[in-house]
């Protein structure tokens, strides 16, 4: 009896196909053949329990905490003085805050894509990266959620966005995409958190049972909630896990669609476009995979996880990035084409201004880092070369940020009425909040790597069981 169901067995890597892939030089292994239950548990749990952390972790944490302090500083000053400290004004009322919001929430999408959609598609290679990417999703969405709140002007009354029986007798305007956003983002965060924790509980039990100090045993024991791996418990956990994956799948597509409605429902040239939802979702997965690669490549090297996160993982993620990158490039082409084809002078003016206006250089930088550089991923050598891949992913992350800058700022700064045209220049506080949010993200991520198993131990054991059965 195999450890997995018949459906898994039927779709498990066909030996002739993987032989063909190997002959072509593609990496095929999702797990090294020498791995056993013992080695898997040891490798992953020792990072949290016993192993001394590399110097680079300490250095990274130092940098992350420094940026986090900058974030606190910038937010504290914002709460004191108001959004006037940012470069936003009329006509560009949505500055960095919205650019950063869309950028962060897009990054989150890869985590859900890997953990939910690839689970439903029975992609075995997701197993050793899903935990880390789910954590990345949580932290990215946490960063994303802060920006619209800080942009509110009076963030301390953020709960006015939620329907509750208030003394003013008011309701949120449920027909507004901005209110849809509140529901979409908070649902997304909650579901990601539940999904992540449900998968984490059995691994917390492993840490509890292998803890080498009383304190760790108590802390992991409390978090493990008394999990003991009973067959009936597993049955319920697996059923709920699969259902959550099914629920998260339409959710991941809906969240960035709703975010794109914030733009496309407005009548502004450059925003009012039906291509936005699919184009935003593709861009979100694109930037998310880039961020996953930027995290996974250094982490697997520093913690010696190359036998669990193999070159096949990197190759597959690079392939997803290439595919979604082409969809995004198609989006750029279609935006330009439709601006011309519509015959609408405002659309045409917007496109000309976007390419050759005062922010034109940002548009061309975007084309370079987000369209041209990723074409390197057609090469197998780049896809399986961690260092090169890291830099391509970095380029995509930068590119996706520039894309949101182009969409938000160049559309707003020159609309229908030339008398209201104006420029937008970010201030020190804009930059401080942006880099500070990166500090928040990295701090959370580094703490996660330090204190929780970054690879799902129980799911990798399933891979081992399957490998044993296939032998």
């Amino acid at each position, binding site marked *: *009896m*195999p*450890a*997995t*169901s018949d459906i898994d067995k039927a779709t498990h890597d066909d030996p002739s196909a993987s032989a063909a892939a190997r002959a072509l030089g593609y990496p095929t292994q999702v797990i090294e053949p020498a791995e056993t*239950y*013992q080695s898997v*548990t040891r490798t992953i749990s020792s990072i949290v329990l016993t192993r001394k952390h590399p110097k680079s972790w300490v250095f990274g944490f130092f940098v992350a905490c420094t940026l986090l302090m900058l974030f606190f500083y910038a937010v504290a000053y914002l709460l004191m003085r108001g959004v006037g400290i940012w470069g936003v004004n009329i006509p560009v009322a949505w500055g960095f805050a919205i650019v950063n919001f869309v950028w962060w929430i897009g990054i989150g999408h890869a985590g859900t894509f890997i953990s939910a959609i690839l689970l439903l598609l029975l992609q075995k290679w997701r197993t050793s990266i899903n935990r880390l990417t789910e954590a990345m999703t949580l932290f990215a969405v946490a960063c994303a959620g802060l920006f619209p709140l800080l942009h509110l002007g009076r963030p301390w009354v953020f709960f006015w966005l939620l*329907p509750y029986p208030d003394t003013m*007798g*008011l*309701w949120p*305007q*449920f*027909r507004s995409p901005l*209110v*849809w956003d509140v*529901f*979409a983002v908070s*649902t997304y965060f*909650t*579901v990601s958190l*539940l999904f992540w924790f*449900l998968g984490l509980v*059995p691994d917390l*039990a*492993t840490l*509890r*049972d*292998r803890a080498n100090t009383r304190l760790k045993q108590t802390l992991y024991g*409390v978090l493990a*909630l*008394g*999990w*003991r*791996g*009973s*067959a*009936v*418990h*597993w*049955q*319920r*956990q*697996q*059923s*709920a896990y699969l*259902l*959550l994956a099914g*629920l998260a799948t*339409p*959710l991941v597509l*809906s969240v960035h669609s*709703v975010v794109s*409605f914030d733009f496309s429902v407005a009548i502004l040239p450059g925003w009012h476009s039906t291509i936005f939802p699919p184009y935003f979702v593709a861009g979100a997965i694109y930037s998310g995979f880039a961020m996953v690669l930027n995290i996974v490549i250094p982490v697997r090297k520093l913690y010696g996880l190359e036998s669990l996160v193999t070159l096949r993982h990197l190759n597959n993620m690079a392939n997803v990035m290439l595919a979604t990158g082409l969809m995004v490039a198609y989006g750029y082409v279609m935006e330009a084409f439709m601006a011309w084809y519509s015959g609408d002078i405002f659309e045409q003016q917007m496109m000309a201004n976007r390419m050759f206006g005062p922010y034109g250089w940002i548009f061309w930088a975007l084309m370079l880092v987000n369209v041209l550089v990723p074409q390197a991923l057609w090469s197998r050598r780049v896809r399986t070369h961690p260092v090169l891949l890291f830099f391509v992913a970095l380029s995509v992350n930068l590119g996706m940020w520039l894309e949101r800058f182009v969409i938000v700022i160049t559309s707003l700064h020159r609309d229908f009425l030339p008398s209201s045209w104006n420029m937008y220049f970010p201030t020190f506080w804009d930059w401080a909040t942006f880099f500070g949010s990166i500090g928040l993200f990295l701090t959370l991520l580094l703490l996660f790597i330090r204190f929780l198993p970054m690879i799902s131990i*129980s799911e990798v*054991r*399933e891979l081992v*069981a399957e490998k*044993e059965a296939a032998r």
Partner: protein
Amino acid sequence: MNAAVGEVARREDRAPPRRNRVYGLMAEFTDHDALLAAAASAFAEGYKRIDAYSPFPITGLAEAIGRPRTIIPLLVLLGGAAGGVGGYFMQWYSMAVDYPLDVGGRPLHSWPAFVPITFELTVLCAALTAFFSVFLLNRLPQPYHPAFNVAAFAQASHDRFFLCIEAVDPKFDPVQTHAFLENLRPAALHEVIE
């Protein structure tokens, strides 16, 4: 289920001291196939109060000990439906009844604009139901369970597989059950003390 069994057993004999009472007999195996086979034969033998423990989910194990289905999908469906209906009702009530706002004569019951939030609340309520029903039905968090009294059970979250026949089983007999488990050729056999 174990928790329930434990509670019943505890209530039944409140009088005698609970110390050193046998909770069950536990056989330890080194791989999942052996556990699956052992679980199936224990169930075939007529034992009903059994539980199997493994470091990762094993398809067919719950079925092998006579627990073919879980109610979770149904609960999730109900939770999702409640979220969807409730979410739509909230929007209709607030926008069309409680606080009607005439925007250029557009209909107050503007259902297409209510779709996104209805969808989000459906997903949210379904997900919350899925998560909490796992822990409620599993009776977790549970700070104490007799299985943890077996020192070797720490391996149940690592590389060992356990089958426990509980003392509350009507067919349980310290000698015969011991012999039966011995026949399954386990790596070790433990007595679980409550």
